[in-house]
């Protein structure tokens, strides 16, 4: 059991953690989410003492990990960590990466360690890579080896610092599956991630971090479907939609489309809707919005999607042709052909397209 007691961490010029409180029970799989810069990674690093907290305390099975009774090595043996960038030892092959700590640090017999490593490799389907060096592996394979390396010292708790962020979308699944597998075996885990689908799938509870504290805590359903507090609601709304501010001078159509597609790819929206939205985003932005907006002020675009529809909302429009008198017939025809409806609100200076 891991307890946070008024934990704070202050750096020279900012203070990511102010007052963290919470309990992690054995077998919990906690996802730590929140806007960037809220100290999610810092919190993880404080747990295995890669960073030391500046105030408060962390109790591991009731005993402070900062107390003199706890050797820092014991803390790190009990609490393993998996990094975003894998950090496999480049000069060691796969099997040595896994066995180096148990053998040279914790005095495990070399043969026993070797046998156990092979069992792990078999479990994670990497038996044939045991003599490969890290530079010969794919990102997903590297991360799997990194997880095995952490498991080989038999930790009570495993920390994951954005384990899938550095991976190709194709490889996210192979790592996600392993974490899911570990959570089903009741290994206590804390995971910092931006992969919300994954959070929903594996976590038993979620810590939403904001303002330097655990702002809201609950099951995935509670946090995602029924958030209670202001900032959590805002965060959930934002992860479900895609927002961007554009400016006629600096805007990059192709970047916009690519970000937009990235957002939609994590949703279950039908492909024909996505393609239509893709086409419309270009058509509308260029011919209906920027045809009229001649000044430099920013225009906000919000895109949200659900199973059946995609909503494309433009706001902060100063000179929009709300009567659509100036738009040429061809453009109008293309747009009208693709959208279900168009909601124009001249008072709020917004226009919304539903696809």
């Amino acid at each position: 059991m891991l307890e946070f007691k008024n934990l704070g961490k202050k750096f020279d010029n900012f203070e990511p953690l102010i007052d963290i409180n919470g309990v992690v029970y054995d077998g919990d799989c906690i996802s730590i989410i929140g806007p960037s810069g809220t100290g999610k990674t810092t919190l993880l690093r404080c747990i295995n003492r890669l960073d030391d907290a500046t105030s408060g305390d962390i109790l591991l099975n009731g005993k402070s990990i900062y107390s003199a009774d706890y050797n820092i090595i014991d803390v790190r043996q009990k609490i393993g960590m998996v990094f975003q960038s894998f950090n496999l030892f480049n000069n060691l092959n796969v099997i040595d990466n896994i066995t180096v700590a148990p053998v040279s640090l914790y005095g495990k017999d070399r043969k026993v360690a070797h046998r156990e490593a092979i069992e792990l490799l078999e479990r994670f389907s990497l038996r044939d890579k045991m003599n490969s060096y890290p530079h010969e592996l794919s990102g997903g394979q590297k991360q799997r080896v990194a997880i095995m390396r952490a498991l080989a010292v038999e930790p009570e708790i495993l920390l994951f610092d954005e384990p899938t962020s550095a991976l190709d979308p194709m490889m996210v699944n192979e790592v996600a599956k392993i974490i899911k597998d570990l959570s089903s075996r009741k290994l206590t885990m804390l995971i910092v991630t931006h992969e919300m689908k994954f959070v929903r799938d594996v976590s038993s509870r979620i810590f939403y971090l904001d303002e330097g504290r655990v702002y809201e805590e609950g099951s995935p359903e509670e946090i995602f479907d029924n958030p209670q507090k202001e900032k959590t609601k805002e965060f959930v709304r934002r992860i479900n939609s895609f927002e961007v501010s554009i400016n006629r001078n600096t805007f990059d159509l192709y970047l916009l489309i690519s970000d937009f597609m990235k957002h939609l790819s994590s949703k279950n929206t039908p492909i024909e809707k996505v393609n239509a939205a893709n086409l419309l985003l270009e058509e509308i932005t260029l011919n209906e919005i920027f045809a009229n907006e001649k000044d430099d002020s920013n225009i906000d675009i919000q895109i949200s999607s659900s199973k059946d529809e995609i909503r494309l909302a433009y706001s902060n429009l100063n000179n929009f042709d709300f009567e659509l008198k100036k738009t040429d017939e061809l453009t109008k025809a293309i747009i009208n052909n693709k959208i279900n409806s168009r909601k124009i609100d001249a008072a709020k200076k917004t226009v919304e397209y539903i696809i």
Partner: protein
Amino acid sequence: MNISTNKKIRRTDLLTITIIIVIAIALFLHLFLKPAEKKDAIVVKSLEDVKTSEIAVLTGSNAENVARETFPDATLMTYNLNSDALYAVEIGNVKYGMALSFVIDDYNKKRGNVLEIVGEPVKESESGIFFARNEKNKTVLPQFNEFLNKIKENGELKKIDARWFDVDGEIINLDYDSLNGENGTLIFAVDAAYPPFTYVYNNEVVGYDAEVVYRFCQEYNYALDVRPVDFNGMLTGIKSGKFDIGGGGNAITEERKKSVDFSDPLKKNKMCVYTAAGKTEASLNFMEGLKDTFYKTFIQEDRYKLFLEGLKATIFMSCMSIILGTILSFVICLLRLTNSVVLNKICDAYVSILEGIPVLVILLLLYYIVFKSSSIPGEYIAIIAFTLNFSAYVSEIMITSIRGVDKGQWEAAYALGFSYWVTFLKFIFKQSLVSIIPVYKGEIISLIKSTSIVGYIAVQDLTKMSDIVRSRTFEPFVPILTIALIYYIFSFLASNILNYILLKVKWEKK
């Protein structure tokens, strides 16, 4: 497996091919590209002509001063070895040279009248022994002058004179080990290439000046620590008090008296201008010429021993400097890895100062200033200088490579429970070796080559030994080619050893 064998063969081939090519080119240039015989055109050889010509002289010698005063419009070509100056004039690289008549005579004696004296002697002077201005010499110098007077009166000096200056004089070796040092030891520096005053014969220092000093020590119970150097090095060393006495046909001048003491005059000298006599040696055919040169360079007077001794010194200095320098650089590197601002600043300053000063200058600083009055042998001072220089460069190489290792490697090791030191040695340093070794190899080769400058501080390394041989045989070709090859082979071996180590530490599949 196959690949590595092939590679080995290629490397060895490369060595052989390179050596053959170098020898072939050198031989070709030496033997077939001799300057075309000058036709008997009217060659002006007069002191009038000297005024606007080039004059070869020994660096720091009286000849240099006299030439500068007498022929202010001439261009002076200064050589560290007088034999090089003489040879340059003989082969026509420089039209005139200036030296003492005895020196020219001695050269002609060995080479067969290849030089001729131009006009009247430019200046007459007297030569004596240098005495450093130190406490010891307050008693030694009066004793020496007293001894000199005595042998002038009893005719002993005449006998010595005849031995070294007469055409049929019989050279003897001086047994320095037999001197009993009851009254202490004197450090006796000589210009090892200045026959007949001081030079190396049968691997020992002999000559007129040397014998007088030797006889004096016999009589007054001093031991001698003989240091063969070049003239300029001898003079600098005497001025700084590094050496007690110095011999090498030193002209007594007012200028020099300002900074060193002289004994009473030993010999009257004439400073003359000389030029090539237009006569070449009776030309031998190719094989005979080569045989003759080879005989003179290695066999005569057991000169190969000089090369071996020089090689021993070079290897000793290189290896010690590499070992100590590597250890020191590793220590500096560890200090720079600490978070201490003070230590970091100190190490940065150390590296930047030593990188910014040529190693020769460091060597001279240590020898003439820092260890001025200590009796540490030059070899050790050279090792210190090279160690300092090497450690600065190598610590920079190391720190760059170590800092270049991904920070994630540290964190991953920490997270598993490894301590700082174990992490550093087991993961970080091992990984950095792959980028350290190739650059380190370059530094080692450049260190081996740069040891060739230690002759400046009286260390008899390979280069210095070849100088000494050259000054005796007056044949620069074989000695220089020999040491070139030895340096190349030495560097080649060092480089291959490191390549082997690199293969061992590389983690990529072999």
